[in-house]
């Protein structure tokens, strides 16, 4: 044969061989080749190649196709029963392996099941509202040239009430107002009621709040009606019917008590909503329908968002002239997007994040891959051990298909058993898991079972294909004669599937463990970083009602100096919470509407605030005591507030960021400068800067420190802070409560510890971290199970080799070295793959924090070291087991 003769196109030939039936392959291929060579002689190579392709395609016809093996030949009841029997026997024979195999898979299934429940929960938000696709939330984004930039989840423009009349595409507009905290009094019992909203009577036309009693059409039509949730009804009226009862509700701004009638009881809402409603109140009058409200619009079927948007903007311009939209953006959010995509200022509750949903989908996938790979490795090792059995089957005439079928039966069966165990495990784990990360299972058990069974079958098939193909193509003679040694292959000369799979496993483990370690670093940092403020031992009574607030001086005087009380102070925003009020600060000579005047947050504080909270001054002094508590005048409907504010004497403190925002270089330069603060009609009189405060973290470390101006104004001290001494905590708390009850008998005494408030800021991070811990732990267990199985197996196949080496004088150490070398190589390779990936992901995550740790190489070292250690000790222990036997016993078989 002429060796230089061109070959026909490889892929065409491959395709032909694939489709052609065996008994005609030779003659047909001969024909095709003959024509190819003939055309090669007559024409050039390209044309011959094309013609060959053409002919291969043309021959793709009935006479050349594979003959299907009729079903009866390998799908046979008795053969099936027989294979089940053999599977059982093999299971008994290789009990350790089979159990390892199944338990690894079971853990994997449990983990994936939990993640699926979590992901479903996160993505199912608002799905119980039937019209959720047509409901949009109206939000407003304010910006100003002074640097003010806040996107609010609620809207404060009153003209939007007119939208349903002016824009035909909008069917309803529903306002949810919770501008003030509500206090409920029933007999002797006082409750502070969260999640209570004033809302419109047609709320039930838009949202599917299911009423257990009461008529949705009329429940909230009349003023002073209230609908409460089932849970609340039980809390308020533990032994009776709440329906129709009257309850007294006090607002936050005034001490006026209003009596509301319960006109409906609502089924408690599932947890997957951003709008957790416990109480709905009807508006007392039309005037109450104003100011800040979470505003939802129900669009007509088929209404176009862009049209509504432009009509809304036209409406604003028509009312307030062409510059109505300057610095103001109205943004619509689809209801179901709010949970994962929103995260604006003043959300009703903390939102989830699409980032975490993505991360955990990837993690679920990785674990599934890990588990499948494990299963593949262990099953193929198991099958190799049974090469002799397979050989006998082949000799007795088993067709390749039958062997594949047999092996698939086994892997699917194993996988189903594992799924059952995994399902049970998930069922047992779920209560604590759900509580840990705040998730409810909203999937039907039937769906879960079917999904689990389906994925078990798929996993079984995928995992079973590789060993099935390997074993069915085993060399008959070889497999009868000897068990092949199992190793990962010597060098990196060729790609080896086995080695690839183990690399993948290691890489996934490294990725998860290292990421969890770094995330942990960041979390510790968040909780332990020196904030510049002392949060220990400080009690906070947050958002006190107006009446309480106005008596702060009394409260302070009564408590100060008593045993166990280290200090009493108050502020506008409790430390840990973002400051929500801001305004423009002007220095001397600046006009109020000067665009270069910086926008700053305002923190109103009592004189002792710095001392009690342990905040230090860079220069100057705290606010002077000469600014005293004067009796606060009565304001009717807010009239006279602005005159009152401008007429008080002022002194200011700035933090360092604010100082720089003013353009002053050093604290010394700043002292004695005079500034004024204003926000709309509220203006504070010009006064000197008496001190510069060292920057401290008022809010979460996700955000940069904002410029803050500190001022004294008794009108705005809404959060009381009491520093207590550690000993006799209980009696001190009692003392405070007694004083409170004496001064404010109509309000419940409720408090938080400031360090808890700070910890609460990272609730979401804590949840995610715990989930990550759990998953990386599981991944580690799964990977370890797989590794352990492989090492045990590979040592088993190499018993004889090890025995000979020992006879020839090899030490224990050198044997361990020999075996572990290939695994360590794989570990290094997978580290090289996983570490950059993990670095990439984790630095993306860290970018979400304004203050963060550096990614430390230590975490990677620890991860690698840990895995390496586990690896070596497993190998050493298993080898030790082998070393104990006398080599002669092993070798005498020969």
């Amino acid at each position, binding site marked *: 044969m002429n060796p230089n003769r061109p070959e026909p196109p490889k892929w065409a030939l491959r395709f032909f061989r694939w489709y052609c039936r065996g008994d005609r392959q030779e*003659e047909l291929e*001969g*024909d095709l080749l003959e024509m190819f060579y*003939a055309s090669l002689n007559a024409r050039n190579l390209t044309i011959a190649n094309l013609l060959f392709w053409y002919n291969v395609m*043309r*021959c793709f016809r009935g006479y050349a196709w594979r003959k299907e093996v009729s079903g009866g030949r390998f799908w046979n009841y008795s053969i099936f029963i027989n294979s089940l029997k053999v599977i059982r026997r093999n299971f008994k024979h290789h009990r350790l392996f089979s159990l390892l195999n199944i338990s690894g898979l079971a853990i994997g299934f449990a983990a994936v099941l939990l993640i699926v429940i979590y992901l479903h929960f996160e993505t199912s938000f608002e799905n119980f509202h039937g019209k959720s696709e047509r409901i949009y939330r109206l939000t407003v984004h304010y910006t100003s040239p002074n640097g003010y930039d806040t996107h609010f989840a609620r809207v404060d423009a009153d003209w939007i009430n007119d939208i349903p009349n002016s824009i035909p595409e909008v069917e309803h507009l529903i306002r949810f107002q919770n501008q003030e905290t509500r206090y409920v009094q029933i007999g002797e019992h006082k409750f502070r009621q969260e999640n209570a909203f004033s809302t419109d009577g047609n709320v039930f036309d838009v949202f599917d709040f299911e009423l257990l009693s009461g008529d949705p059409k009329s429940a909230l039509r009349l003023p002073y009606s209230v609908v409460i949730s089932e849970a609340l009804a039980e809390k308020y009226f533990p032994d009776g019917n709440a329906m129709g009862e009257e309850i007294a509700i006090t607002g936050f701004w005034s001490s006026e008590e209003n009596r509301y009638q319960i006109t409906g009881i609502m089924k408690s809402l599932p947890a997957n909503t951003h709008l957790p409603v416990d109480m709905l109140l009807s508006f007392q009058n039309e005037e109450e329908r104003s100011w800040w409200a979470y505003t939802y619009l129900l669009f007509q079927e088929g209404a176009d968002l862009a049209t509504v948007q432009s009509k809304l903007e036209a409406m604003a311009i028509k009312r307030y002239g062409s510059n109505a939209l300057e610095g103001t953006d109205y943004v619509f959010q689809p209801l179901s997007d709010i949970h994962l995509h929103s995260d604006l200022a003043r959300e009703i509750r903390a939102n989830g994040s699409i980032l975490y949903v993505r991360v955990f989908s990837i993690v679920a996938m990785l674990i599934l891959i890990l588990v499948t790979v494990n299963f593949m490795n262990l099953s193929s090792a198991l099958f190799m051990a049974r090469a002799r059995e397979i050989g006998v089957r082949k000799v007795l005439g088993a067709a390749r298909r039958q062997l594949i079928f047999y092996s698939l039966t086994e892997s699917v069966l194993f996988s189903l058993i594992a799924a059952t165990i995994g399902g049970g495990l998930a069922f047992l784990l779920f209560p604590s898991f759900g509580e840990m990360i705040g998730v409810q299972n909203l999937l039907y058990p039937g769906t879960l079972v079917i999904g689990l069974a389906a994925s078990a079958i798929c996993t079984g098939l995928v995992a079973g294909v590789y060993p099935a193909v390997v074993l069915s193509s085993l060399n008959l003679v070889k497999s009868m004669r000897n068990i092949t040694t199992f190793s990962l292959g010597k060098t990196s000369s060729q790609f080896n599937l086995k080695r690839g799979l183990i690399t993948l496993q290691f890489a996934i483990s490294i990725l998860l463990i290292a990421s969890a370690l770094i995330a942990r670093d960041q979390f510790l940092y968040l909780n332990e970083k020196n904030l510049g403020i002392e949060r220990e031992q400080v009690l906070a009574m947050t958002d006190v009602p107006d009446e309480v607030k106005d008596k702060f001086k009394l409260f302070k005087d009564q408590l100060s100096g008593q045993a166990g009380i280290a200090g009493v102070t108050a502020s506008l925003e409790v430390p840990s919470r973002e400051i929500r009020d801001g305004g423009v600060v002007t220095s001397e000579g600046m006009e109020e509407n000067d665009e270069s005047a910086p926008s700053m947050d305002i923190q109103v504080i009592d004189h002792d605030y710095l001392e009690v909270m342990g905040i230090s001054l860079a220069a100057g002094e705290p606010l002077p005591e000469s600014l005293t508590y004067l009796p606060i005048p009565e304001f009717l409907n807010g009239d006279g507030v602005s005159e009152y504010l401008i007429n008080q004497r002022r002194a200011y403190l700035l933090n360092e960021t604010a100082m720089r925002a003013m353009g002053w270089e050093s604290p010394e330069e700043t002292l004695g400068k005079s500034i004024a603060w204003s926000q709309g009609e509220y203006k504070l009189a010009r006064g000197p800067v008496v001190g510069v405060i060292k920057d401290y973290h008022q809010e979460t470390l996700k955000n940069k420190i904002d410029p803050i101006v500190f001022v004294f104004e008794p009108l705005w001290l809404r959060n009381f802070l009491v520093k207590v001494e550690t000993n006799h905590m209980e009696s001190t708390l009692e003392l405070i409560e007694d004083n409170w009850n004496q001064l404010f008998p109509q309000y419940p005494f409720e408090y938080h510890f400031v360090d808890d408030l700070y910890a609460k800021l990272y609730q979401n991070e804590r949840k995610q971290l715990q989930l990550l811990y759990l998953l990386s732990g599981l991944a580690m267990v799964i990977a370890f199970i797989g590794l352990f199985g492989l090492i045990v197996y590979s040592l088993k196949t190499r018993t004889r080799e090890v025995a000979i080496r020992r006879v020839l004088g090899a030490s224990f150490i050198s044997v361990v070295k020999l075996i572990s070398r290939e695994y360590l190589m794989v570990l290094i390779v997978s580290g090289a793959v996983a570490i950059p990936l993990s670095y990439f992901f984790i630095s993306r995550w860290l970018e979400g924090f304004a203050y963060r740790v550096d990614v430390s190489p230590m975490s990677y070292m620890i991860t690698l070291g840990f895995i390496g250690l586990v690896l070596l000790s497993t190998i050493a222990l298993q080898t030790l087991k082998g070393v104990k036997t006398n080599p002669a016993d092993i070798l005498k078989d020969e």
Partner: protein
Amino acid sequence: MVIILLTKVKLLDPSFSIFLTNVTKMENLKLGNFEELVLLLVGVLCDKAYSVTIVEEYKKQTGKSINISAIHTVLYRLEDKGFLESRLGEAGDYRGGKRKRLFSITPYGRKALDELAELREQLRRQIPPLTIATQN
């Protein structure tokens, strides 16, 4: 007509499969036009008849070209019907070392060809001779 009657009789028989394939198989025992041509070519090529030579011979005799897959189809079908028989022939480097399948006509095939030719001849002979039409 005979075929239809046969099928009708068989349909009454409960052991007879009513699948249409049986009916078509019966019809397939006839020789199609193209099948007859290929059968003739196999005869002409004598003991050298296999797919590639048939393609060449077809082209030589009719002047038209044809794809080999068409010839394959017909050859295998004719073998199924019993008009042809085959054996594996010699392999050669010119066909990549693969053996070829050589076809030859069975006596049944030869008989079918003869009968067809006879029928044609008989019918042809009965056509009245061509006369030149005159205008009177």
